[in-house]
């Protein structure tokens, strides 16, 4: 057949029929399109900025901000620069994220385990909790806590005194503040020393158990060691802590630690919402552990609490960690909803107030997004490292 020669080994396929060359062409086109698109946007943006008289660059970071912030973890007032507002906002975001992660994890594990309880009422209540809170938008929950619950608290003069000088009113929750006196350094020293000692104790106990099989309650001993040593030093140094109670001065409380209602509302909503998701993750993790494992452990005569702690939970954690990481990331990103109720987080003070005052949208938004990307990256790096430690090693 004459056609056969067309497909012989040494005749090359047409350029567009060669997969490798076609892929190359396609990628070159793709890069070209993207570059053209970016150039188009950049030129538009530059001309738009010029007509609106907005300067570019990061010089604005050193200008005076001129506005106050409700909650600052580092010294700040209106005379500080926009760069400082960035740091203040970032620290407020990290504060609420950290507290939220801790609370949501605690609540989520409790609800997740409660959903598997043999007690019918407890299991049903946990199920209702999950179904209610995960199907309602987080923003609505934040509004609910802030506008419907916390705003109906009494005014400072009619504060509810909870216990021992803790005051609750519409302006926030006021706690007594501990002030370290003379000799408190010794207590800190004793605490650190006890921590180091318990680290070695745990290592020694593990080694001994591996070698001889004898069990030593190292964790309980460590807790006792830390509490005992720092407590004893505290007493010996003459209890060097004084509590400063919040006092009603004029229309508001002064002194002590103030937890502003914006923080409480955001924290409540974030942790209750995320806990509903964490509970489902924990439940699926525990259900994923083979029933034979529980039976085998029970057959060995382990009590139920140790079956849970030594057999079920470690294996459940392997299933739990990756989705748990996503929930932590979601919580950190969701903390940006703070801006809706005026909690001064990064988005609120930087992408909100700072952007409005300087008009430098590009730089401000880029910095904000960069921070969240970096935070996400760091958390997933840490959780992946932890995941590798607990993951099942198979041959």
């Amino acid at each position, binding site marked *: 057949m004459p056609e056969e020669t067309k497909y012989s080994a040494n005749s090359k396929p047409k350029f567009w029929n060669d997969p490798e060359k076609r*892929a190359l062409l396609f*990628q070159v086109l793709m890069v070209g399109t993207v570059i053209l698109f970016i150039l188009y946007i950049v030129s538009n943006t530059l001309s738009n900025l010029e007509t609106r008289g907005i300067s570019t660059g990061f010089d604005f970071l050193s200008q005076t901000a001129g506005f106050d912030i409700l909650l600052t973890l580092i010294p700040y007032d209106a005379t500080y620069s926009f760069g400082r507002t960035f740091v203040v906002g970032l620290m407020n975001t990290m504060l609420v994220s950290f507290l939220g992660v801790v609370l949501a994890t605690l609540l989520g594990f409790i609800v997740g385990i409660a959903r598997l309880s043999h007690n019918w009422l407890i299991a049903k209540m946990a199920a209702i909790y999950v179904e209610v809170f995960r*199907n309602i938008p987080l923003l609505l929950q934040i509004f609910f806590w802030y506008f*419907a619950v916390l705003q109906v608290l009494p005014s400072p003069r009619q504060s509810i005194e909870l216990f021992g000088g803790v005051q609750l009113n519409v302006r926030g929750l006021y706690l007594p503040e501990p002030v370290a006196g003379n000799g408190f350094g010794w207590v800190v020293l004793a605490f650190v020393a006890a921590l180091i000692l318990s680290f070695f104790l745990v290592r020694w106990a593990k080694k001994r158990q591996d070698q001889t099989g004898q069990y030593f309650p190292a964790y309980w001993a460590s807790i006792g060691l830390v509490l005992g040593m720092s407590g004893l030093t505290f007493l010996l140094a003459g209890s060097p802590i004084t509590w400063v109670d919040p006092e009603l001065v004029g229309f508001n409380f002064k002194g002590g630690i103030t937890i502003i209602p914006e923080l409480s509302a955001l924290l409540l909503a974030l942790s209750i919402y995320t806990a509903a998701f964490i509970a489902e993750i924990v439940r699926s993790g525990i259900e994923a552990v083979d029933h034979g494992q529980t039976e085998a452990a029970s057959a060995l005569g382990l009590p139920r609490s140790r079956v849970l702690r030594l057999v079920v939970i470690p294996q459940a954690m392997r299933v739990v960690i990756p989705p748990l990481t996503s929930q932590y990331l979601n919580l950190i990103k969701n903390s940006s909803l703070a801006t809706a109720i005026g909690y001064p987080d990064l988005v609120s003070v930087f992408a909100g107030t700072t952007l409005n005052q300087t008009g430098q949208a*590009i730089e401000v938004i880029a910095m904000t997004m960069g921070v969240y990307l970096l935070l996400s990256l760091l958390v997933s790096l840490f959780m992946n490292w932890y995941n590798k430690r607990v993951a099942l090693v198979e041959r």
Partner: protein
Amino acid sequence: MLHNDHKLPDLPAPISNRGPVGWLRENLFNNWFNSILTVVAIYFIATTIGPLLNWAFLSADFTGDSKDACTSEGACWVFVTVRINQFIYGFYPEAEIWRINLLFALFALLIAALVIERTPRRGWIALFTLTVFPVIAFFLLYGDAFGLEKVETHKWGGLMLTLVLAVVGIVAALPFGILLALGRRSHMPVARSFCTVFIEVWRGVPLISVLFMASVMFPLFVPEEISFDKLLRALIGIVMFQSAYMAEVIRGGLQAIPKGQYEAGEAMGLSYWKLMGLIILPQALKIVIPGIVNTFIALFKDTSLVLIIGLFDVLATVQAAITDPAWPRVSTEGYVFVAFVFWVFCFSMSRYSQALERKLNTGHR
């Protein structure tokens, strides 16, 4: 050997192990710890649910046309019934509301046809919903053609806007998500890195910052002559954000397809697009339908964030109505109403996705 073939009849279990008493002993009081938990739970329920029911139903006001109708101690649902039109339709002109109702009816019909299994030609209906229906919806809502009056997008609001944002978000994010997922698994290094970076960047930032970007940066990106609709800007932001999440869901489906399927397709001499379109994607998408529904639920809840950039979705209309001084102290009622609306949508979708998961969990794996 002694045999006894006359077996005694089985006795019923003792009374303490059956009936309501047995159930109680088994499920609520089987040991001292559970008994304590039960008592605490009952106390908690009695102190919360009772007053809650009383507030919401027994001593609540349902009828009337102003705040004066709210005379009792309980909830003032009159607030919701008076404003229900605004909560559903936003500021849409009263005379044109039939257009939204028609659209809602059509949408509900299509959804029902898609969910009910016995409907013939469900594939074609799905295609119609994804392609033709959005066009119809656009002309019905926006007007300015076929003799319909033009309704500017800033008059759109309420539940209708929420649904527009969610449905457009998901319908538009699906094709982008498929392309991104294919790109991320492509053998071409440039395409792969573009898609990976795009997905990871949008997944790593909060939706709020994307919306902020859409509202303050997009106008800078286009020539000054082009005016850029606020709703359109928000939609572009939502679609970009959502397609990154969608891409990851679809990637999961692509990874679940056995290698043999790819090889068999290649052995048949199919081109890349034919291989993907005829063999891989139909299977992959079928596996991840529950994942897509979950993404849709997340998007549906997230649409409420548009209130931060000044669009009036259902939450924002209620939030605005609450601050009306003519209606003092109705914030709880307002929030409960919005929560109920969102809850009904999200809960039914999540139940549907679970049912699908059970149904699809037959062949694969």
